[in-house]
Every structure is written in C-alpha cells, then in structure tokens.
C-alpha cells in the first residue's frame, strides 16, 4: 500500500545497487533512431561487444528524413550516410527496423505506442529526450545520451539515480478549444523549465484520466521541457482499450493476464509522493509561448509580461527572449503575425491532432503569405488520415501535406524557417535557432491554435473560430 507506480516499476527492474550508489536498472524496451545511435554502435564495436537483447530493441528513422520526397538516395549526402549507418547496424545486430520501406516508419515516440510495443509497467529508453512520451501508458521512459545507448545495447541496463516523484493533480475538465497541450504548457509556466530537475512527474486527477491516450502522450512528452526526465499517467481502461489488438500487444489469455498486471502497478489511492502540485483544468485557456523557453507561455488572452513583474531569476532569460522575438513588454500575444504554420512532431503529430486541426481548417483558406504544412507523425497516422480524407481538407485550404518525420520540430531535414520568420508550431521547443534559422522565431501552441493562426495569419483564439465540435467525417 501507499506505493506509487514509479517506485513499483523501478523496484521491479532494479538489478542491483552499484558501488557508486546508483541503481542498475533493466530496460524492457530500447528504441533507437538514426541520429544518436551510430556512435553507440561504433563504441560497441571498438570494444568487441554485442547487442545483448536485440529482441527488445527496435529502430526507425525520423529526425533526418526529408518529408517532401523520400526517394533514395537522399539528396543530402550526410542524411543518406546516416540512413545507411542505421540500416547497416540494425541488420548486423539483428534489430527489427521500421525503415522507410515499411508502413510503420515514423517518429520513434509515435510508432512505439502504435505498434503496441509501449506497455504499462515497462522501463523504456531511447536516445531522445522526448522518451517521456511513453509514460502516458504507465511506463517509465528515459531520454538518454549516446554513451547510455551504448550501455543499454551492451547490457540492456543502465546506471541511474532514483528521482523523487511529484504528483501533478489536474482537477476539473477542459473547456472546448482547450487541449492537453495547454495543460502541459501551463504546468511548465507554473513550475518552471527547471522545476522538474530530479523529479519524475505523475500526472493524475479527473482532467488527466478524461483524456485519450494521444492527449496523455502530449502531456508526458513535454515533461522534459519542465526539467523532468520522466512523466507518466497511471494505466486505466482507456490505456488497456488502446493497446488491445495492436501488433506487439499480448493477445487472448495473455492480454487478460497483462491487464491484471497493469492494474496492479498503478499508484495506490493513498500513495505517497515527495511533492504535490494542483491545477484546475476548468480555469485554463489556450496557451501560447512568447519567448525562447517552453516555460515562457501565457494564455492567448494575456499580455506578454513586463520585466518588472517577473521574479528576479526569470528576468534575464525574459530580456533575451524579448530581444530575440522582437516583442515588447505588455503587448498582447493575440494578433502577432505569423509566416509559417507547422503541424506535426512527437508532441502533436498524431491522428487526433490532425483531426482537430482539420476541423478548424475545413472550408477555410490559409492566410496570404503564410507557408503552412502538415507532417504526420508516422506512416500509420498518414494512412489513417487518408482514409478520413484529411489531406484533401488541408490541401484545399492551402497546406502542404508531407511524409512522416520530425521535420521542422528540429529542422535536421530540409524543412526550416528562413531568416527571422516566425512560426506557429505544434512542436515542443521554442529555443533560439531550433527550427533551422538562427534568427527564426517559434510560437508553441496546440494544433487547433496552429490551424487558427494559419487561417487568420496571426495568433488567434481558436475558441472564436471553431465550428461546432463535431468530427469532420
């Protein structure tokens, strides 16, 4: 009793305590991609080591893949070289590879859940900070660096210090036009971009458990933007329903066994936490970032803060942010003109995100001068969207419809901002230079808000634009 999921799952995977005082933790699922893995394989080979559990290792390509034409060889020689490296490494070590030749290529944090690989109670590691996404299932996902990828490849374990656990209790219900993205942007704005250092975040409460799995993934995904390496939601019936029938999910009697196990690991009602933070979803409005960290977010109704009203420790970054963005103190965020609208990323590139954006876009036109494009998070998302006629809706409005990948979330492929362009983006980071131009500017918001901005050409309140909340098909 009084156990929280994090500690239960940690203990179940703890191999031993090392001399350093860290725990050696077994990793149940290792996901790899083309950007952070080649050096790890190289280190492995230099030491004459093998991949210990290729059966628990899965690979895809997402960061560098072009989205306009995915024909091989890629025009970008360096991207092609990385592509060949992951093909070679996965083949040599017998690792299942969901490459461009399969129907399951996509952003690593989107395909894991889609394939049923991501399950409650697992420890999951990936050389990408947004691995926290998988926590939506009641798994513990760790973003790791390349040396740790080497460790996991060689030993299926890694050395970690146990973090504290903060429960974030979100009461009430989201109002129409307000989304999971707004919950997490508000949490980061309140607790700060470094507030989660040393913590795992457990998202709990009525508002969280009313969310779909895809919405829960959006929230867990951005835990790292609040400094928390791990974020998770206790598994419930919504979780089990999502997993059932997926390719790698247990089936038949094994599924029933699994559900019993999954239920057993959820935090007890009277579980103890190192800290608790409360938020009321009823009070939330659509959020937009105005600066250069994901914590610099305000309600669309609000004005950019004045430096004077900010706490001392936030002032310096805020000053830098205003200078970079070309914004002034006390200006409303609403009405800020945009040049680019980007719908996609591991935060908001799933089918429900595209459906919601399509609902806003349907029958409208992208504002003159705005470059708008949709990058589905995975091939499966793309295939499903085609079944529902979403590409036509976006194309008719003037959006480009692209192939699956990370795209302009981090601009390692040809999709980039130019010069001082400003984007409305459904991604996760508004860091200086993040979207490919050192002078480029990013406004983070929900996919529906990105759609609204694309149509009006400026930051707008989607609640004033949204048609009645019915599905498009």
């Amino acid at each position, binding site marked *: 009793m009084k156990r929280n999921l994090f500690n239960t799952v940690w203990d179940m995977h703890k191999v031993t305590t090392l001399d350093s005082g860290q725990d050696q933790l077994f990793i149940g699922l290792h996901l790899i991609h083309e950007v952070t893995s080649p050096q790890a394989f190289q280190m492995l080979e230099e030491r004459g080591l093998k991949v210990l559990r290729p059966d628990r290792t899965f690979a895809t390509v997402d960061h560098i893949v072009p989205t306009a034409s995915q024909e091989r060889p890629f025009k970008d020689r360096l991207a092609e070289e990385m592509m060949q490296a992951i093909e070679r490494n996965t083949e040599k070590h017998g690792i299942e590879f969901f490459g461009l030749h399969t129907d399951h290529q996509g952003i690593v944090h989107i395909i894991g859940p889609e394939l049923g690989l991501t399950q409650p109670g697992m420890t999951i590691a990936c050389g990408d900070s947004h691995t926290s996404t998988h926590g939506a299932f009641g798994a513990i996902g760790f973003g790791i*660096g390349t040396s740790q990828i080497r460790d996991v490849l060689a030993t299926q374990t890694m050395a970690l210090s146990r973090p504290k656990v903060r429960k974030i209790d979100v009461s009430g219900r989201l109002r129409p036009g307000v989304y999971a993205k707004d919950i997490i942007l508000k949490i980061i704005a309140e607790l700060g971009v*470094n507030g989660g250092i040393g913590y795992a975040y457990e998202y709990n409460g009525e508002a969280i458990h009313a969310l779909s799995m895809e919405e829960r993934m959006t929230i867990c995904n951005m835990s790292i933007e609040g400094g928390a*390496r791990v974020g998770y939601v206790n598994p419930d019936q919504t979780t089990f329903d999502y997993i059932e029938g997926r390719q790698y999910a247990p089936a038949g009697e094994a599924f029933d066994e699994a559900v019993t196990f999954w239920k057993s690991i959820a935090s007890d009602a009277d579980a103890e936490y190192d800290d608790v933070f409360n938020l009321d979803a009823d009070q939330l409005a659509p959020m937009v970032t105005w600066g250069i960290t994901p914590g610099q977010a305000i309600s669309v109704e609000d004005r950019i803060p004045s430096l004077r009203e900010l706490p001392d420790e936030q002032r310096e970054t805020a000053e830098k942010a205003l200078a970079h963005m070309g914004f002034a103190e006390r200006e409303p965020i609403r009405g800020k003109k945009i040049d680019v609208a980007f719908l996609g990323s591991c935060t908001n590139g799933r089918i429900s995100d595209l459906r919601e954006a399509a609902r806003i876009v349907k029958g409208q036109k992208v504002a003159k001068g705005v470059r708008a494009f949709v990058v589905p998070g995975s091939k499966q998302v793309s295939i499903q969207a085609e079944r529902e006629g979403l590409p036509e809706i976006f194309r008719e409005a003037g959006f480009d419809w692209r192939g699956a990948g990370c795209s302009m979330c981090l601009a390692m492929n040809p999709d980039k901002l130019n010069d001082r362009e400003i984007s409305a983006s459904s991604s996760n*980071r508004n860091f200086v230079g993040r979207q490919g131009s*050192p002078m480029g500017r990013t406004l983070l918001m929900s996919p529906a808000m990105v759609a609204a901005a694309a149509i009006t050409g400026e930051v707008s309140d989607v609640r004033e634009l949204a048609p009645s909340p019915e599905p498009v098909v």
Partner: protein
Amino acid sequence: MQEIKHAISHVEGTAVVVAGNDIDTDQIIPARFMKVVTFDGLGEYAFYDLRFTEGGEQKPHPFNDERFAGASIMVVNRNFGCGSSREHAPQALMRSGIKAVVGESFAEIFAGNCTAMGVPAVILPHETIVEIQKRIESDPSTMLSVDLPSSTITVGDTEYTFDMPPAYRSALIAGNWDSTSVLLSNVGLIEERASHIPYLSGFAG
C-alpha cells in the same frame, strides 16, 4: 573486451565564462551539425550560431575571445544544457577543450552525459558563481582547480566547497564513469532480474 578505466579526480586550468540561464543544447550544438556518424570534429561547432553570423563572420562570444583561449573549465549559470538529450552537446564542449563544467544547476540528462564522458559537472550557489565569473572576467589568467575527492574548487587563492550528485562524483573518482564494463560484470544478475519481469515472458505465467 577493452575496458576503459580512467580515474578523474582533479581538473586544473584557466576558465571561460559562458553567462546566462537556460542555455539549451540546441545553442550548444545546433541540430544541423548532428548529421554525422561520429563525434570527431564536433568541437569547432560548439555554440556555433552564437559565435558566427550566417555569413561565417565572428560574433562576440567567450569561445571567440582570445583572452579565454586554452581554457579547460567552463563556468555557467542556471539550468545549463536543458532540452535535447543529444550527447553531441557535451561532446562538442569536450572536443573544444573543456574538461570540467562549473555551474548553478544542470539539466539532468546533460549532467549524466557529462559524467559518462568523464567530464565533471559541479554545482555552486548563484552568488558564488557570479563572484567566480566576475573574477575570471577581470583576470582570465586566474587558475581554477576542481578537486573531486575534497569536493572543493579553488579559484586563485579562494577555496569553495561544491555540490555534485554523490554517484557521479564517486564514479569519476573510481574511474567507473564509463559504465559499460561495470554493468556488464553483473550479467548473471541481469538475467536473474529479467526472469522476474512478467512482460518479458509474454505474460505466459
């Protein structure tokens, strides 16, 4: 297997100040320089967009400042290395000559990556960091010395006690910061643990 065991208990040298909070890994190494299959050569791209214009002209930045040339210790402020898990960031710093980082706080993954590469990331309070930064700015030849066994940093003739996750400190001192061989030595325990994890057997009982 080739075992890498190299104790790191002391780093000494001049320092460079990279001031500012929330300096993210995209600023330390912009994503476009990560299209490489090895870490070699990343050093020249450290802080690239802060150091160079798009035309390749130098901008004022401590890493371009001759006064700090040859520095092996970097002094930073709060939440340094936030954002992406890319080890390319500390790799770029290390390959440009940085052997230790001293700051108010570090993002968790960044600090872990530093340790895994044998680069100590040590923590001092805000006031102390500002004091040290001022001193280095006014005299870049000031010698700093980070001593892990005593948890102290000496700046000129002033000594401060720093903070650091004990596991990182002891791994560096013991030379176990490259953790693969330590983890692999427990291979029997790994198998034993795996046999008790229900999903690994497909819930077959």
